[in-house]
C-alpha cells in the first residue's frame, strides 16, 4: 500500500477517534498556514542549499558539505516520532533506502527533537539513515519551514502528553512543516515537497523516480 493511502487511513481513524472539535483545531491551523501563503516563503527548486553543521543522533557533527560530497542529498524535515504521520513516513523512507542509495543519493531526516530522542527514534524504527537534530530549529528557519505552534495546538499536544519544551530542551514553541528537499551534488535544490498539512507526505516512489531522473541528468 502506498504511503499516501496509509496516511489517509490513519487520518480517517484519527478523525473518528478525536471527534470534530479536536480534529477541527488541526484543520483550522492548517488552513491558516495555507491562507497566509506559508509555503511561498520556503526555499524551493533552484535555491541553494543552506550550509549547515548539525549533531546526529549518536552525537557526531555532520556537515552539509560532507553529505554533498557523496552525491545528491535528500533532506526530510519531520516533527518527531511523537507524531504518528512522521513515524509512518520515517519507516516508509527506511523501506526505500536501498533504492535511494542505489541512485547514489544520501538521505537524512531532520527533527527539532533533542535530549536523546533522535537516537531513540532511530532505534525504535531501526533506521539506517542519519537522523540530525536541528537544535532550536535554526536550519528549519533557514529553509523557511518553521512555524510558531499556536496555543490551541500546544494544548492539544499537551492533552496527548507531548511535551515539546522537554523534547526540544527549552522553548518548544516552533515546529517545522514536514518537508522533503532533494538537492543535487552541487548543492542546488532540485525539488521541494511542501505541505502545511502534516498528514500528507511525499510519496516514497515519487522520490525514487525523482532521484533516478537526477542520475539521468548526470549521465
Amino acid at each position: 500500500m502506498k504511503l499516501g493511502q496509509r496516511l489517509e487511513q490513519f487520518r480517517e481513524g484519527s478523525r473518528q477517534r478525536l471527534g470534530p472539535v479536536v480534529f477541527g483545531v488541526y484543520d483550522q491551523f492548517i488552513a491558516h498556514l495555507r491562507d497566509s501563503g506559508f509555503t511561498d516563503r520556503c526555499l524551493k527548486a533552484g535555491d541553494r542549499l543552506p550550509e549547515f553543521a548539525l549533531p546526529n543522533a549518536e552525537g557526531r557533527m555532520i556537515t552539509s558539505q560532507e553529505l554533498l560530497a557523496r552525491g545528491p542529498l535528500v533532506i526530510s524535515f519531520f516533527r518527531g516520532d511523537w507524531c504518528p504521520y512522521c513515524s509512518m513516513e520515517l519507516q516508509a523512507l527506511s523501506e526505500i533506502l536501498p533504492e535511494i542509495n542505489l541512485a547514489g543519493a544520501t538521505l537524512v531526516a531532520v527533527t527539532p527533537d533533542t535530549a536523546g530522542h533522535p537516537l531513540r527514534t532511530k532505534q525504535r524504527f531501526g533506521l539506517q539513515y542519519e537522523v540530525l537534530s536541528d537544535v532550536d530549529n535554526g536550519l528549519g528557519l533557514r529553509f523557511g519551514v518553521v512555524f510558531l505552534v499556536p496555543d490551541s495546538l500546544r494544548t492539544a499536544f499537551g492533552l496527548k502528553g507531548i511535551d515539546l519544551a522537554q523534547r526540544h530542551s527549552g522553548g518548544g514553541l516552533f515546529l517545522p512543516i514536514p518537508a522533503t528537499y532533494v538537492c543535487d551534488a552541487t548543492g542546488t535544490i532540485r525539488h521541494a515537497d511542501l505541505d502545511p498539512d502534516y498528514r500528507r507526505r511525499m510519496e516514497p516512489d515519487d522520490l525514487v523516480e525523482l532521484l533516478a531522473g537526477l542520475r539521468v541528468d548526470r549521465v
Partner: protein
Amino acid sequence: MEFHQIRYFLALARTLNFTRAAEACNVTQPALTRAIQKLEEELGGPLLHRERNLTQLTELGRATLPYLEKIYVAAEATKAHAASLLKQETATIRVGLLPSVSARTIVQPLSEVARRIPGLEVQMMQARQGDLIQQLNEDALDVALLADDGELPERLNRWPLFRERYDLVCHADHRLAGLAAITLAELAAEVFVGRQMCPYENCLRKAATDTGLKLRFVHSCATEDQIARLVAANLGIALVPEHLGVPAPLVRLPLPSPGVERAIVVATMHGRRHTSAVEHFVRLNRVHPFAPGAKSASKPVEHSIAG
C-alpha cells in the same frame, strides 16, 4: 517564517522605530513594514502597537521575542558552524564542573569537538556551584555543568543534561551492607562523611528531622576522593551521585524512599558570544545527553540487596 522577517522584527524590537530598524537592516521602510505584516499574519496577531509617536511591543510581541531571538541565533549558528568546521580553527573550551560531577559526563561531546577542531584546547576547572556561576559571570568560564537547585540566576542559559538519584555508600563489611532495606532510623544510628556545601545532604537531613530523627554528619570533605578514602577506612557512610563510580571495597545501597534526586544542566552566560567550539559542545550535550545509569568503562561495584 523567514530568516529576514525575524531579523527585521528583532531590529524593530530593539529600536521601537520603523525608520531606524529599516536603516539597521539596510532595507527600505516599506519593505520592512511588509515583512513584519506578513510575519504578524502568520503568527496570528500584531507584534507591535503602531501609534504616531510611539511603537510598542504587544503582548504577543513580548511573549515571542525571546523565542524568536533564540531561533534567529540558531539559524545564524548553523551557517557559522559549518564554516568554522571547514576552516579547522583553533579554539578553547573553558568548562567548569562541580566536585561531585565526573568529567566522564562530558568526554564524548568534547572528543567529538576535538575530532572536528584538531586545534582544540580544553581547560577544565572544578569548583563549587557559587564559584562556577561567578566564573561564568566574569567570563573566566565558557560553560559549566551545574545542579539545577531552582535558584540558578536568570542570566544563565541552561539546558537539562541528566537527572540522577543519590545512593548511600559504605564499606562492604559495614553492617548496613547486610540489611535487606535501610530505614531513616538505621541511618540515624550512623556517622556520615559529609560533602562541603552539599544541598542534597540537607534534603536527607530534613527528611530525618521531619520524622523526629537526627542524622550525624560528623566528618567533612572537599573532594569525592577524600569521601571515598574515609568511607573505605570505615570512618562513616556517605551519599554518592548515581553516575559516580564506587571503587571496591565500597558498595552502593539505595536510600530510604523517597530518596534524593538532582538535575544537572549545562549552562552558559546569556548574551555572550561564544566560539563555535563552545556552541558545538553545548549542542552535542543537548542532543545526546549523558545517561547516568549507563555502563561505564570503569565499572562501579554494584551491590544487590536481597529481598
